[in-house]
């Protein structure tokens, strides 16, 4: 009890630290310089309607690469731990009839939606991560419906590796083709503003990211469910 009171006290004190920021805070009325640059010059420079996407994929592309890497590392760790602790799998209760039927129905739709989301990442809210997550949710559904079906990593990891590798290569291509152009999307023509095939490399990268995130999250889910090397998806 004393401990909890003490913890509470500490949390309150932590709250005070954070609170010290609040009095000085008020919602901005104007954008900071850099953000203003993004909003004002972004569409022209990168040709992406979704400024957030422009920031994520190009202006702060290195962050995104790192982000992808983190997911990659997480999935590698999950893979490693599962790989190291192969143990006989307990049988789990199968999903209900409704679930299985629903899954069969929804699975392709969800996949399709996911692909839509990341392909249109530069135009509408959404993007590679979101799309990838949607795709992975399809796999989650699958796993929930058929918990005893063992799904192999083979294809997923090939997709994951290839998309990641390509992403890096495309980023590096910028260095070759332009000055200081690592992850520069402008090595492809910007195209017509607002159309699907515009904003240079952004849709490509987002596609790759989507594939990669989708396959990574899927493989994490599958790994957590219990890995099997034999069966392929």
């Amino acid at each position, binding site marked *: 009890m004393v401990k909890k009171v003490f*913890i509470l006290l*500490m949390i309150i*004190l*932590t709250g005070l*630290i*954070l609170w*010290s*920021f609040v009095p*000085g*805070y008020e919602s901005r009325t104007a954008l*900071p*310089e*850099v*953000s203003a*640059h993004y909003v004002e010059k972004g569409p022209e*420079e990168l040709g992406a309607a979704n400024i957030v996407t422009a920031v994520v994929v*190009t*202006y*702060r*592309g*290195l*962050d995104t*690469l*790192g982000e992808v*890497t*983190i997911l*990659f*590392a997480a999935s*590698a*760790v999950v*893979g*490693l*731990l599962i*790989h*190291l*602790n192969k143990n006989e799998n307990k049988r789990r209760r199968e999903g209900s009839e409704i679930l299985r039927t629903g899954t069969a129905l929804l699975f392709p739709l969800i996949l399709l939606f996911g692909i839509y989301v990341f392909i249109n990442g530069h135009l509408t809210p959404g993007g590679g991560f979101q799309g990838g997550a949607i795709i992975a949710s399809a796999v989650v559904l699958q796993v929930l419906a058929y918990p005893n079906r063992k799904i192999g*990593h*083979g294809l997923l*990891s*090939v997709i*994951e*590796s*290839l998309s*990641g*590798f390509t*992403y*890096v290569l495309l*980023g*590096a291509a*910028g*260095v070759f083709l*332009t*000055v*200081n*152009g*690592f*992850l*520069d*999307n*402008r090595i492809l023509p910007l195209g017509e503003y607002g159309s699907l095939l515009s904003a240079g490399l952004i849709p490509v990268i987002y596609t790759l990211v989507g594939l990669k995130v989708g396959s990574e999250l899927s493989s994490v889910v599958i790994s957590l469910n219990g890995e099997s090397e034999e069966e392929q998806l």
Partner: protein
Amino acid sequence: MVDPIYLIVIALATAFALGLFRKAPSLLPYGLTLAALAVMTVISGSWAYGILSGSLEGTDIFTAGFTPPVSINLYMGSLEAVLLLLVNLTALMTALVLRKEVKDTSVYMLMLLLVFVMGLNGVIMTRDLFNLFVFIEIVSIASAGLIALRSNLEQLGAGFKFVIAGALTSGFMLIGIIFTYYTTGSLNMDVIASQMSPALAATGYTGLFLIFIGMIMELKPFPVNGWGLDTYEASVPAVSALVAAGTTSAMFYAFLKTSYMSGGLFVQAAAVIGGMTFIGMNVLALQQDKSRRLLGYSSIAQIGLAVLAYALVALYRIENGEFIVFALILTHALAKALLFWLAGIVGKDSIHDWGVIKKKMILIAPFAVAVSALLGLPPFPSFFAKWDLVMGLAARGGMVWIILILSGSLLEAVYLMRWFGNAFKDSFNEEDTLDWRFGTVLPVFFNMTVLLALGYLSASQSSFSMGFNWILLGAVAVLMVLDFLPGIIKNLLLMGAIGYYGYGFVMAAESYRSVFAWIFALGALITLLPGFGVKGKRMGFYPSAALMFAGLIGLIEAVDFMGFFLSWEIMTLGSYFLILRGKDSKPHALSYMLFSLGGAYLLMTGFAMTYAGTGSIALGALVKAAIIPHSGIIFALLAVGFMTKMASAGLHIWLPGAHAEAETDVSPMVSGILLKAGVFGLLMTAISMGEQSIGPVSLPYVLSWVAVITALVANYMAAMQEDAKRLLAYSSIGQMGYALFGISLMSHLGWLSALVISIVHFIYKVTLFLAIGSVAKRTGTRNMYQMGGLITKMPFTFFSVLICIIALSGIPPLAGFSGKWIVYNAVLEKRWMLQGAVAGAAGIIAFLYLFRLIFAIFLGQLKDNHRKVKEAPFFLILPQALLLGLVMFFSFLPGSLLRPVGEILEEFTTAGALEWQGNMAISDYGYWNGVAVMWVFMALFAVFFLILTINGRRAQWIKQFNIVFAAERPARPETTHFSYNFFAPVRKALGFLEYPFTTNFWNRVSDFLHAVAGFCRRIYTGNGQTYLLQMVIFVVLSYMLTKGGF
């Protein structure tokens, strides 16, 4: 030049591509990984070389085709290049070491390794705050994966604690980043730094603080680092190596970047936290006996030191700060990686099981190098860094920090040296194996080489010019390389080198230096002679001896404090290795090292204060230091520092064991020669600084009492020893007490006596140790009561002991008397009669132990098993004969010794100098004609001998049991030889002198520290949640203390 962005590209591309090789034979992905790491190493290496050699300049690396702050940028400068090289090299080496793990872990481990390295590269290079956060997350996730490489319970537990601690830290940091973004409108560190102003610092305080505290917590500050320790302990050693070398260096650099960004807002807090970590971890490590956890403690402590160094450099505006901080970091990274790899090779966790390392003796070399480097011993970069730091601090009034740094270093020495001693001395199970593979061994030796090379390079980087002759260390290195040769050849080489160098060196030495130059050079040659009698290679002996003699020579040649101190440490190091070679020398070598280091740190402080006061580090500055404020404290520091080497009362407890347990020909080196280094230093101080006092207390007066009490108690203790070599060791303490007394008299005669005692003590103590050593060798014991009657078996040895004890006790016809006579006159001149009387009493107590020595060993009853003992081997007798010749020469012509030495001292003071009339020395009080005494003695002796022989020519020579035994006969020599507890009545009367005040005192200090460590380390409960709570408390408290409220 290759764009540094490729470092990231290559690592990532390879990592991603590895997924394609899941099914391939493990060699292929492994080869790819190695290749990627090698290419990265080459790239970073070429940048490091280019920038350091000046052919390249630091460059910004822009991404996305924009310039910052619009896009994220990286920076490649000299520091970055060096750190990248370090990280990538360590990663490459670690990959080599991890070869065995590849099979079990599929491609995952390799992926994680590459991602990890990529993250480190990013952390080092990035200039964007959020990007830094991303890279830190990459590093922490990848390392959390690598920690669980074997996925056992310990690793999982440690990994989980690591993850949650990391999550909490990064959470705070992220809040900090976003707050800062709000206040500054930018994420680019350079932009933020350029905007930084007091006003901004005030409004953005919370954000900056959270970033700071996050970064600090990444560096595992004391006491919120239990998770870090667990990580170090649980991981595969190779991974720990990478974490210790790579992560900490990169995180430290990131910390520096953020700290620069905030305009040094939290420098004071960093200093406090760094200092606390350095001391705290070193104290807590005392109780640790698991090697990897110990290394964890040490790593964190070292990072604490680096943080502290950075903060102090910033606070006190110390010059050459970059060198200081990075020398510390680099040394730590290289040495710590080496030690972790070594732990992997050894495969034993308890430091008591490390004896197995001796299966490959050569592994001792990197071990020694790493430990020395961590302790900041020369010639490693950390030595120069610490020197610069301490000097800078002193010059700017940071005395408290100096004390903190040096005491922390001393604590660190306790456990590291104890560990090293264990490894070197402990026995091991023959069945145990080492993980001796190319992949594991190469990194170890590679890092060792790098450390040595860096040492040489960093000497020039220090902001202090240094009068040290690197040729000396070069010779040591040559001997180290040639260690595979037979001992005799190495001995010839070393003697040749000393002879060749020594000639010029002795000739070049001036003033009182020449006296010590003679002792060191001649002593080296003479004490190396017995080495010819030792068969086999004697691995490690000659490099160590060379190291010690190099230090001694350097001491004489030094022209400035740095050269002097460096030589001092080198000498200490060499002698430590020599002493450690002895049979049961483990604890004694440790205490020797600790006291020496403690003394050395006092010297360093004293030098630093002198530098602060005079602005010069030339040895001549000591003269100027005599009149600056605090000169008394400087004198006291230096005196105590040198007195640890001379083993004065209170600081002596290392000596008896160290000298007694050392090998036969090492004892004379460390006793006859090495102790004179302390005399030299103290004499230099005394001559340069003159009489000093702290307040009303005159320091020479205090010294004089310490000296005579040392002499008295040490001589008494010597008389109570059963072990012959311990007896001699205590005798050395007593003799050094006389020398100290001579110095403390601060007069011509006093110094003359100190010099004369140094010379004759060198002669007879070397002889005695050789003689007694050869007896111990022949009889297989050092206990005197187990010997007896050896005069007939070892007549020459007896003779040399006889001459030496007469000389040592100062009985007139021999050379020892001159020292006593001068002391009497000096005492009268100074009128310190009470001290003089105590010294005199000590001199008489000396008879007690001297008689015991010669009686119990050579006289009395010969034991059964010694009936076939042979005379000492030739190479032990030869040096004795040479030295006896010297004794006799000085005895016949005392003037030949006293006159030149006296003339040397007349340069400093002539008051009370001896006046010479022919062979007669005349002082203000008395006179003495050594030649006349000698001739009278000889004449009387001859006449009486003749009378006895003419009258007693019919004497029947009888055997040992033909004694009057109350009409009975003795039964056994053992029961007839009176030797055990020889001075029982004295013990009955004066036993209180034996009460181990000093030993108890130091034991209590040690017990106290260990108890504190044992108590305090309970904060590391092992419960991850508690660790989190501690971290929250830490954040709260830090905020309160830095801001002074909320």
